[in-house]
C-alpha cells in the first residue's frame, strides 16, 4: 500500500451540494435528497455474541439507565479521528483515518493506541454492534455512497465532513454504557491492520448468517400481530421525526446556499466604491471606508456560513441518518416478536415435539422481553441525547447569528464614527 498525499482538510471553500429546485419559498418533502444508504440489515437477534450471553433477568437490570447519567464525570475513554490520508493501490484508491485512543479502562492493555482505519472498517464495526445488540440504537455512520452531484469522490469537503462524522460515531459508541464494552469495539480501536483482518474473519460463518437472513426475511413477511402500544407510539414518532429532520436538513442546506450567493454578490460592492473613490475629491475617505466596511461584512458573512456548514448541518444530518437506524431497530424487534408469535401458533397446532418447541418458545419469550427492555432503555437514552444535542445546536446557532449581526453592527458603527470624526476635524471649510 502506497501512502499518498495528505489531504488538506482545512479548505475554506465549501461547496454545498446542489439540491432543491423549485420556488424560493416552498420546500416540499420531495425525493430530492434520498441518497443516503439504507442500512438494510436483516440480522436478527438469534446470533448473539457469545460473550454477552447472560440471563435475561440480569440484563434487564443493566438497562435501567439513570435519568441523570453524566458522561463527562465518568468518561474514561477518549477517541479522536483525524489525519485523513489517501492511499493508491493497483486496484483502488481509498482514504484512511487515524484513530487515536486514550483510556484508563482496565480491559485495555495500554493507555494509548494509534491505528489507521478506512470506511469499510467502520462499517464492519457498525454491523458487528448491530449483530450483537439488535435492539440497541447504534450511532449512525456517514453515508456509504457519494452524494448526488459531487464529481470527485475525494473532494476535500467530503472528506472533512466524513472525518467529523466518523469521529462522532466512535465517540457516541464510547459514551454508550453497553456498546463501549463491546469486544469488537476494543479490537477496532487497538488492533493493527493484520490483526483486525484476522479478527474480522471470526464470528458466525457465511452459512449461519445466511440462515439468519432467511429467518429474518420470513419474519418480516409474517409481520407482527400484537405490537405493544408503546412501540407503535415510538414508530409513529420516528416517522414524523424523520420527516422533520429531513426538512430541517434541506432548509439548512438551502440557507447555506442562499447565503453563499448573497456573499458572491456582496463581494462586488466594495470594489465599486473603491473605483468610485478614484474619481472624487471630498468623498474619497467616506467611499474608501464604505468599501472597507463592506469587505469586513463579507468576511463576517463567510465565517457565519462556514459555521452553519461545519456545525449545524452535520448534526442535523446525523439525526436524519439515525432515524434510519431507529426504524431498523424497531423492525428487528418486530421480527423477534413475529418469530415468537409464529412458534406459539405452531405449538397450538402441533401435538408432537411439544417439549422441544415449548423450550424454544420459552427462550424466544425471554429473548423478546430482553429485546423490548433494551430497546426501551436505549430509546429513552436516545431521546435525551437528541434533545440535548439539538437544543445545544440550535442555541449555538442562534448565538452565532447574534455574533454575526454584532460584528456587522460594530463595522457600521465604526463607519459612522469615522465620518463624525472627519466632520469635526474638517470643520467648516469653504470651497469657493
Amino acid at each position, binding site marked *: 500500500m502506497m501512502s499518498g498525499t495528505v489531504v488538506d482538510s482545512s479548505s475554506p471553500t465549501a461547496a454545498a451540494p446542489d439540491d432543491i429546485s423549485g420556488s424560493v419559498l416552498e420546500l416540499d418533502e420531495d425525493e430530492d435528497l434520498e441518497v443516503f444508504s439504507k442500512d438494510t440489515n436483516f440480522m436478527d437477534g438469534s446470533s448473539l455474541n457469545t460473550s454477552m450471553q447472560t440471563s435475561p433477568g440480569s440484563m434487564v437490570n443493566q438497562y435501567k439507565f439513570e435519568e441523570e447519567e453524566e458522561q463527562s464525570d465518568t468518561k474514561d475513554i477518549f477517541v479522536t479521528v483525524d489525519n485523513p490520508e489517501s492511499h493508491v493501490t493497483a486496484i483502488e484508491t481509498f482514504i484512511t483515518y487515524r484513530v487515536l485512543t486514550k483510556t484508563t479502562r482496565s480491559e485495555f492493555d495500554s493507555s494509548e493506541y494509534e491505528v489507521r482505519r478506512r470506511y469499510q472498517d467502520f462499517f464492519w464495526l457498525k454491523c458487528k454492534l448491530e449483530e450483537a445488540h439488535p435492539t440497541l440504537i447504534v450511532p449512525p455512520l456517514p453515508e456509504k455512497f457519494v452524494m448526488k452531484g459531487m464529481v470527485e469522490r475525494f473532494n476535500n469537503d467530503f472528506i472533512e465532513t466524513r472525518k467529523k462524522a466518523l469521529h462522532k460515531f466512535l465517540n457516541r459508541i464510547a459514551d454508550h454504557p453497553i456498546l463501549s464494552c463491546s469486544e469488537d469495539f476494543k479490537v477496532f480501536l487497538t488492533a493493527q491492520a493484520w490483526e483486525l483482518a484476522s479478527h474480522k474473519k471470526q464470528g458466525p460463518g457465511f452459512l449461519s448468517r445466511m440462515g439468519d437472513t432467511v429467518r429474518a426475511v420470513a419474519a418480516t413477511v409474517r409481520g407482527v400481530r400484537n405490537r405493544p402500544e408503546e412501540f407503535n407510539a415510538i414508530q409513529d414518532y420516528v416517522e414524523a421525526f424523520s420527516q422533520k429532520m429531513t426538512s430541517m436538513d434541506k432548509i439548512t442546506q438551502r440557507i447555506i446556499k442562499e447565503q453563499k450567493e448573497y456573499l458572491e454578490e456582496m463581494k462586488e460592492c466594495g470594489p465599486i466604491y473603491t473605483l468610485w473613490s478614484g474619481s*472624487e475629491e471630498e468623498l474619497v475617505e467616506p467611499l474608501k471606508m464604505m468599501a472597507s*466596511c463592506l469587505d469586513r461584512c463579507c468576511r463576517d458573512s463567510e465565517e457565519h456560513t462556514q459555521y452553519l456548514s461545519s456545525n449545524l448541518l452535520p448534526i442535523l444530518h446525523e439525526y436524519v441518518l439515525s432515524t434510519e437506524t431507529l426504524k431498523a431497530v424497531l423492525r428487528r424487534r418486530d421480527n423477534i416478536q413475529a418469530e415468537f408469535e409464529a412458534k406459539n401458533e405452531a405449538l397450538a397446532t402441533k401435538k408432537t415435539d411439544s417439549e422441544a418447541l415449548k423450550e424454544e418458545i420459552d427462550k424466544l419469550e425471554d429473548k423478546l422481553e430482553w429485546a423490548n427492555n433494551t430497546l426501551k432503555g436505549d430509546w429513552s437514552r436516545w431521546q435525551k441525547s437528541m434533545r440535548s444535542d439539538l437544543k445545544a445546536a440550535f442555541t449555538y446557532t442562534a448565538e452565532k447569528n*447574534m455574533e454575526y449581526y454584532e460584528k456587522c453592527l460594530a463595522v457600521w458603527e465604526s463607519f459612522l464614527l469615522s465620518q463624525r470624526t472627519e466632520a469635526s476635524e474638517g470643520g467648516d471649510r469653504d470651497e469657493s
Partner: protein
Amino acid sequence: EETLLWLRGCGPRDMVEKGTTLLKRMEISVAEAEKRTGKNAVSMQETYTVYLIETRAVDAASEGANPAPDSLWRRYSEFELLRNYLLVTYPFVVVPPLPEKRAEFVWHKLSADNMDPDFVERRRVGLENFLLRVASHPVLSNDNIFYSFLTQEQSWKEVVFETGFQAKADSRLKALNATFRVKNPDKRFAEMKHYGDELQSVISQLLRVRARVADRLYGVYKVHGNYGRVFSEWSAIEKEMGDGLQSAGHHMDAYAASVDDILEEEEHYADQLKEYLFYTEALRAVCRKHELCQFELEMAAQDLTSKKQQREELATGTVRTFSLKGMTSKLFGQETPEQREAKLKTLETQIEDGEEMVKEKNAECEEFVKNAWVDIERFKEQKDRDLKEALISYAIMQISMCKKGIQVWSNAKECFSKM
C-alpha cells in the same frame, strides 16, 4: 435670447447675495398621489396618476395662524414639460433631475409596474424633491414659469408654450447630439464631462449590484420562514421540547418577515443614488453647451480669418492659398477693377459683421463659462454633501438591520434554551 435673460438681472450672483430663493419664502410639498382616468389627445381612455402640489407662504405658518395650503394637481408629463423648459432657458445650470419615468434597476420581487403603489409613493417623494431643489436654486427659483407651475391651476401649459421655448428645445437637442470638434475647450469643462461619465458608470454598476444583493438577501431571510413552519409541525410531536420549538418558530417567521421593511428602506438609498445618476446627464448637457458655444466662437473666428485673407488676396492680387476661385480666375481671366472694387466692399462689410459676431460670441462664451462654472461649483458642493449623507444613512440603515437581527435571534435563543 439667452443674453436677454441675463440682462433681466437673474444672474446667479445677485440671487445668492439677496438670498431670496423661493424656498425661503414658500413651503412646498407634493402631498398626495391619485389615480385618474380620462381621454387623452387621441381620444383614447387612459389611466394616469396626478400629484397634489401644496404651497403655503412661510410667514403665514410662522405666525401660528396655520392657514390651509393652496394646492393644485399635476401629472408627471407636466413636470417633464417644466423641466424641459428650464433646461432650454438656463443652459448654464445643472438642472435637477426628475425621478425615473419607469422603474429600473429593479430586483425581482419589486414590481416594475408604474401603477404599483410603492412605485407611485417613491415617485411622489422624488417629485417633491425635484420641486424643493428647483425652489432652492439661486437662479431657477426665480423663474416665473416655475412659480406658475406651483400656483397657476389653469392654462399653465399654454403659458409655457407661449415662451417659445419649444423651438429652442429642438435646436438644443440637435446640438447636443451633433458631433463636432472643439480646438480649445476649457479644460475644466472637459474634466467635468469626464467626471460625469465616470460617475454615471460607477453609480450604474452600484445600482445593478445592489439589485442583485437585495434579491439574495430576500432569499436568505425568507427561507428561514421554513424553519418556522417545521418547528411548528415538529413541536406537535414533542413533549419537553414542544413549547420551545413552537415559540422559536414564531421568531423565525418574524425574522423572515422583517426583510420586507429592510429592503424598502434600502430602496430609499437606491433612490438617492439614482438622483445623482440622472444628475450626470444634466452635468454633461452643460459641458456640451459650453463646447457648442466654444465651437460657434471658433467657427466665427475661422470665418473672419478666412474673409480677411480673401480681402488681402483681393487687395494685393496674390493668391496665397489654393482656392477654386483663384484657379478659375486664373483660367478664365482677371476681373475688371470695378468688379474687384465691388467685391472688396462686400468683403469689408462681411468682415465688419464678422468682427461683431466674434465679439458677441466671445462675450457669450465668457458669460456662459462664468455662470456655468458658478453653478457647477454649487453642484459639486451639493453633490459632496448629499452623497456623504446618503452613505451615512446607509450605515444607519445597516445598523438598524443588525439590531433587528440581534433581537430576533436573541429571542429565538431564549426559546431554544427553554427546550
